[in-house]
């Protein structure tokens, strides 16, 4: 038979007491209860609206067999290629154009401000009517674009939405057209926050035009540009509208990206778990992007 010493008995009690103190901090007992009462609703909201949906999604897509099904689906394989191309081309082209345009919109003059107002319209107007009108414009038989071709050159234009690469390119174009104004404004704000003294000093030293951009603006904007590109990549990975309303994922399911394939698998194939798995398969790319973004945001605190 073993007997407990006084130290054995007292040990856990001391540990409990110190844990209790750590949790309570310097709060007195009544203050502690009130603090808890105010905290509980926030925790509940966080669990209901963040933890539960994310956890439920992960649970739905947690069966390894779903990923084997995905890998054996030829549509999934072409979807991965499309997604990589969409992110690589559309995001970078959009951000590069936004960088150049933000320089243009820095120019003085009332007409530049007027153009900026018009330029922002595609972003400000709801996406659905815009994408539907682009879809109609690109219709091979009666769309505006091919009718203009015919009127000007007496030739029929291509069937924009009937060939894989033309259709995917059209969806990328719509994505860039819709989102370019937003990123231009962000980079414009970045440029405007560069102190004028720096530019003036550079001017005195003879750095104007492209030199001013290369040695002053771009180094100061580089961090912002990178953060914007990372953010845009994350947003674009979840962009459902551009592909759905321009190419519809067709022809023959050849222009799907992960976001649209998820919906197709969930509802056209009536297999929500497979749909969730399709979207979840982007996580190995998404998580590193979020980590890099968080690190960059930390460094951004001390840089422009």
């Amino acid at each position, binding site marked *: 038979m073993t007997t407990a010493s006084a130290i054995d008995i007292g040990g856990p009690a001391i540990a409990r007491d110190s844990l209790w103190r750590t949790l309570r901090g310097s709060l007195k007992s009544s203050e502690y209860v009130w603090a808890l009462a105010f905290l509980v609703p926030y925790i509940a909201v966080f669990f209901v609206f963040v933890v539960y949906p994310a956890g439920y999604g992960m649970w739905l897509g947690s069966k390894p067999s779903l990923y084997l099904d995905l890998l054996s689906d030829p549509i999934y394989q072409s979807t991965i290629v499309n997604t990589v191309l969409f992110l690589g081309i559309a995001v970078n082209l959009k951000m590069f154009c936004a960088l150049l345009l933000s320089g243009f919109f820095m120019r003085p003059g009332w007409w530049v401000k007027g153009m900026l107002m018009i330029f922002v319209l595609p972003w400000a107007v709801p996406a659905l009517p815009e994408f539907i009108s682009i879809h109609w414009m690109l219709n091979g*038989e009666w769309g505006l674009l091919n009718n203009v071709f015919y009127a000007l050159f007496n030739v029929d234009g291509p069937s924009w939405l009937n060939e894989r690469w033309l259709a995917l390119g059209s969806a990328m174009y719509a994505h860039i057209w819709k989102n370019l104004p937003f990123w231009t404004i962000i980079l414009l704000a970045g440029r405007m926050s560069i102190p004028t003294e720096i530019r003036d000093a550079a001017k005195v030293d003879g750095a104007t035009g492209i030199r001013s951009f290369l040695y002053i603006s771009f180094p100061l904007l580089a961090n912002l540009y990178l953060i914007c590109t990372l953010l845009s990549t994350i947003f674009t990975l979840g962009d459902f509208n551009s592909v759905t309303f321009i190419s*519809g994922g*067709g022809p023959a399911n050849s222009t799907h990206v992960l976001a649209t394939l998820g919906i197709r698998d969930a509802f056209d194939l*009536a297999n929500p778990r497979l749909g969730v798995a399709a979207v979840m398969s982007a996580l190995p790319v998404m998580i590193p992007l979020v980590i890099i973004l968080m690190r960059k945001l930390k460094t951004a605190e001390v840089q422009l």
Partner: protein
Amino acid sequence: MAILTRRSVVRGSLGLIAAGTFARPFIANAAATTAEVWFAQGFVPEEDAAFKTMAAAYEKASGNKIDYSLIPFAALRQKAISAITSGVVPDMIELADFQLGPLQAWDDKLTDVSDVVEPVKSQYVQGALPCTYLYNSVTKKRGYCAIPMKIAAVPFHIWKSLVEKGGGKIADLPKTWDAFMDFFKPVQKGLRAAGMRNVYGMGYQLTATGVDPINTFNAWMIAYGGQGLITPDGKLHSDDPHIKEAVIKTIVNLSTAFKDGYVPPGCVNWNDADDNNAFHSKLMVMDFDGTISTEVALYHEKEKYDDILTHGLPLSNEGKELPSQVNLFGPVIPKGAKNVAVAKEFGKYMIQPKVLNEYLKAGLGRWALPIPEIVKSDPFWLKEDPHRTAYTTQSVLAPTMPIYEAYNPAIAQVGAENAFMSAVIAVMKDGAKPEAEADKALKRAETIFAKYPIASS
């Protein structure tokens, strides 16, 4: 103003919890007379008005409440899948496509409604009833899983004025399948010669999404002798040389018409309503599309409405009558529904022959009535309107067969992947060999069917 103290807050909270607990049974009792019902929104306002009138009449007769939502059918499918997956379901859902019901019945997600259907089933089109008599892989039995209300077939829709402008005559429409399709080719040439640049002889969905391309492929395959692809015992007959030949002929016929320029090129990327829109804008002379929604959408534009010819299936190339594939649409009661009794009672009310007849008539007859005796006796169906006459004859009185999904839900997955139409697209767009694509599609079907074994009864 009362001062909030810790005790008063705790006391108040406990009071609320207690009140909620005591009130709960009474709230539940009150709700037991209410059924939450999701129905598909109609193509025309008259369809929705007809449903509302029927629901109001039931409420008045029973004292129960029907808490309904009318939802566009694509959104309804998404809502239905989400609800059934999460287990938070309404008491009744109308399944507006022909894949979801067989798949959910297989997974034991639907309540058996045999007691609702049995009293009236002898009055229904017998060839169509299997559409709702579905296999449950858990109980290893078939049972009525949907309440049959609307019968739908796929007719041809033809612009009479375009046929004549293109140099053809409606009276000369050939009676057999291939000749019927070929009739529209010189018409297209005539229209082009008359200065209509973008007009096509034929229009049907050669896309890989939705159910329309499945209807197209099946109709052509049946016309070429492939009716027995799946037999009522749920077996796939992909190794039957006649079936394979019918599949190849279908792939060749559909892809050749496309490659020869008799079908709008955009049809490879059409969505559900795109062929209706293209037909309405006179992009093509003929369309092959389910129900007479194409005509009903123009009901209030008399000149256009009268300019359309609704036409049933031609004969086979050998001169034999072809069965139209039909589906019986109707609501299901998902497992987990709270008020099954009210939902069943509402179902029984809706399929009383007289009630159902008035409901479908008020919806302009877009859906045909699946009860032949009433169809023959009520002049609305066969005497008052040429579109309804042709469509009702095709769906109810002429030879019919149920959709393949009724026999085995595996074909629903084959259809959802559009395996056969993908073969057509590969031939017409990538120049693939029809035989190889037919083999590939049939092999894919075999793989899927292996996951859906049906016990022989």
